[in-house]
């Protein structure tokens, strides 16, 4: 799920930036340090949209270092999967264990055992390999297919989120 949130960060600036372009330097540092990162608790920070100007107060001089620390508040688009959530994804890798599908910045693994309806079996002869049902009543899942899946489980580490999905329930599975 994409969230639009207000977040905080301490940005430290070296005295070489103390000049007319201070604000620009502060903004560039915020963007480069934050955008694209993944924090287990907050998810992936995809894009910063704005800074809270009223909160951009004075910097605080760090004793003994000469560096200045600013407390910055900003608004950003964050992507964070939620357990049980249903989302669309694009298949990127297919192997005999299951397939990987990407949704935004995350990659979701759907296992053949437990994650897919029993009708699906791995067809190694087709190129590229795919999962398909014997009677062909449901779409074959291969690289580039669009699928609707549910997030079954997540493992949240300090800097990454690993997700496992399922297409076994009603209204889930192959789209196009």
């Amino acid at each position, binding site marked *: *799920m*994409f*969230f*639009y*949130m207000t977040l905080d960060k301490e940005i430290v600036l070296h005295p070489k930036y103390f000049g007319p372009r201070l604000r*620009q330097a502060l*903004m*560039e540092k915020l*963007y*480069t340090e934050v*955008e*694209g990162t*993944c924090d*287990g*608790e*907050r998810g*992936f*920070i*995809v*894009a910063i*949209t704005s800074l809270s100007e009223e909160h951009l107060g004075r910097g605080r001089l760090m004793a003994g270092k000469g560096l200045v620390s600013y407390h910055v508040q900003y608004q950003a*688009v*964050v*992507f*964070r999967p*939620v*357990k*049980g*959530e*249903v*989302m*669309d994804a*694009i298949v990127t890798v297919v192997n005999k264990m299951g397939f990987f599908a*990407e*949704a*935004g*910045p995350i990659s979701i693994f759907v296992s053949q055992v437990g994650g897919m309806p029993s009708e699906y079996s791995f067809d190694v002869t087709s190129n590229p390999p795919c999962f398909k049902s014997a009677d062909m009543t449901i779409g074959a899942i291969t690289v580039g297919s*669009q699928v*609707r899946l549910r*997030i079954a489980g997540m493992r*949240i580490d300090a800097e990454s989120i690993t997700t496992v999905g399922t297409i076994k*329930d*009603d*209204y889930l599975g192959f789209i*196009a």
Partner: protein
Amino acid sequence: MLSSRRGTTIDEESAADLRLTEKFEKANCLFPAEVKLILEDRKNAHTNPESELSRIPITNTLEKTLAYVQAFPQYKNTETAREVRNKLERFEKFRQFEIAALASLCPEQAEEAKALVPRQVLILYEELQNVLDELNSMKDTQM
């Protein structure tokens, strides 16, 4: 262990009954058509030499996410996306998460909506079906 002392911990989160950690409870949710508008704007700012964002590189995460939101045919333009959000927000019973989920998954039947976005217990089937019919009429049919 990533958890807050009170409230829902990450382990207890669940979309099924809409339990989210505190920070996300209060946040607005966006559906892919809205994210597409924001990211395209950002990408345009990067290529525009007069913008203050032109010197900031576009991250791989942003590129991937932009490709993802562009891959799924959604609503035609900004006005349609705004209309979708207005229509859904008019129902006070819907929470932010449900609004974004319904707008992005765009189920055709109330049955399907209830299976995919579980927490609409307080809304009647007919009301829900009306909302879904309106959403589907605004969907971009050009694949």
